[in-house]
């Protein structure tokens, strides 16, 4: 592992990293990404192989999950290389072993709880796994304003949060990660802030940030916080330096560095919608985007009146060059 990221650290985008076999497609939405103990990379995407696995050089290893999901949204891998999959429109979370066999499912496929009721689940978004206890923390989501905590066997322990803007309230909790082994950080996306909680859901503090949609802590001793920022609302479309960037924060939440161009796009150093984020043991950053759904499906971005459904860049890798 290299030194921790500071303001002088340099990153560079990797051109054409993922090598995808003919016939496999993300359909423009890689959505989310996780890295296992051997630095293999799992992309939970909205194409024909919802879980696509690559080695660190971008060579395709395997794909699975065909037909198993309604709408892939979030993925995480625990320290034993089990896979956790969050399907927002399916309203369920699934734990699978590394071979892809289902260990358990939380929630019932296609059956949401009542909208904004605080039950489980209504379009859940993401999951984080505690490195020691293996407790699960699930952000929920598009139709709820809630974090649910489960033990490692999937038994519900507690839930917190309600709609709003106060400390401990949420406006679209969209991503979640564990900080160290004693805190949880939530991307409170439409409140433009991160919220930090104890493992019991006690509010600790908030960090103001532009439209945070994805978050991860670095691997092992890397205590930096990597945040993917979403574009601004349509009224500010085309204005530079608003989102579509990765912000790297120190553990106190101070901004150290940003990567990404000043404007969104398909270019090598651009982002459109950094929806999922992960790092590997070398400090490389992987970003999965909902590039089609959030960006290119709109005529004003594709330049076409009827944008065809097609592959657009939705998976990025940046490596450290210093």
């Amino acid at each position, binding site marked *: 592992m290299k030194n921790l990221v500071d303001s002088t650290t340099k990153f560079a985008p990797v051109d054409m990293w993922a090598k995808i076999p003919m016939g496999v497609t993300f359909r423009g939405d890689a959505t989310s990404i996780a890295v296992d103990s051997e630095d293999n990379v799992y992309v939970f995407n909205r194409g024909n192989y919802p879980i696509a696995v690559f080695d660190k050089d971008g060579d395709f290893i395997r794909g699975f999950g065909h037909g198993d999901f309604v709408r892939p949204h979030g993925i995480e891998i625990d320290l034993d290389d089990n896979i956790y999959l969050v399907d927002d429109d399916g309203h369920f979370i699934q734990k699978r072993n590394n071979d892809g066999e289902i260990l358990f499912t939380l929630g019932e496929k296609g059956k949401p709880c009542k909208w*904004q009721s605080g039950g489980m689940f209504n379009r859940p978004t993401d999951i984080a796994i505690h490195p020691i206890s293996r407790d699960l923390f699930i952000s929920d989501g*598009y139709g709820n304003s809630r974090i649910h905590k489960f033990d490692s066997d999937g038994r519900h322990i507690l839930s917190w949060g309600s709609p*709003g803007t106060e400390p401990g309230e949420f406006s679209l909790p969209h991503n979640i990660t564990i900080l160290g082994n004693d805190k949880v950080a939530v991307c409170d996306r439409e*409140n433009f802030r991160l919220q930090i909680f104890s493992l019991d859901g006690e509010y600790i503090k908030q960090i*103001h940030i532009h439209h945070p949609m994805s978050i991860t802590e670095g691997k092992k001793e890397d205590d930096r916080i990597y945040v993917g920022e979403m574009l601004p*609302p349509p*009224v500010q479309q085309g*204005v530079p*330096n*608003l989102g579509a960037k990765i912000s790297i924060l120190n553990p106190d939440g101070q901004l150290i560095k940003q990567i990404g161009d000043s404007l969104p796009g398909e270019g090598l150093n651009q982002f459109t919608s950094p929806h999922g984020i992960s790092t590997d043991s070398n400090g490389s950053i992987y970003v999965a985007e909902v590039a089609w759904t959030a960006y290119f499906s709109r005529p004003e971005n594709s330049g076409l009146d009827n944008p065809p459904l097609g592959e657009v860049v939705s998976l990025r890798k940046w490596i450290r060059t210093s």
Partner: protein
Amino acid sequence: MQYQPVKYWAKLPHPMLFAEATSVAVDSEDNVYVFNRGKNPLIIFDKQGNFLDTWGVGEFTRPHGIKIDKDDNLYLVDDKAHFVQKRTKKGDLIFQLGDKNNPSDKQKGYPFNQPTDIAIHPKTGELFITDGYGNSRVHRYDSDGKLLLSWGEPGSLPGQFSLPHNIAFFGDDNVVVCDRENFRLQYFNLNGDFISFKHMHRPIAITEGLQEYQLIVAEAAPPPVQNGVRNLGLRVEILNKEGDRITRFGSGTLGEDFDQFIAPHGIAVDSDGSIYIAEVSYTSVGSHKLPPREMVSLRKWERVN
């Protein structure tokens, strides 16, 4: 400190209407000036809501912001005309900044591209203008309308803006900007040096409270993805010098009931501490209804204690 809504306050002579009230200001006699997008852009009421006067027919492209200085001169910000006008309270033009319907280049920082609001320094009469939808900038002018300096650029870092939408004074030495799409207030000194920020939910309108350093802020509704979720914006907050909330009102839901808001957009306070809120309710909601219709767009809340 508690507030309650005043029901049916504004009494409009038939068939005059607002279409939508965009902004509101109160003069030294507590008369209320409503800058609106109906046929009669300026409609003036006494503090009981009785109609007093109207003027300005055909003179504006799209009303957006209004302020009154301590001598009861009016300042009118027209975003789509790209100008700011100083007028007497009878409506006579004193001067105009910007060229009607002729914007500067988008996001280049020169005045104006869809300016939004103005604040007038209580002692020097200097003007601070937020600009706006097509710029990411605050411009400072002397009291005669000579440009002194400008600051800000697009972005989300300190001193950068994502839609500076309203501006007010914080004491005599600082200004506060509603950095609307960055979900924060930003505090600057009069030379534009960044001092601090305060996180808020889509702050859209701001005015000075009756006490020095007090601020009254209206929060806008959330983006469409959160439509219908309660307690997200659509409230008015009063902040003390430290930025802590003294009180808050509004039910936190969208609608036309007396305790609700639709799209708060401009705010003013009178000498009793009553608060007026103008809303762009037609643009935000009414125009999307089938058929489109005018909705409540002016609210008055008074102090209970």
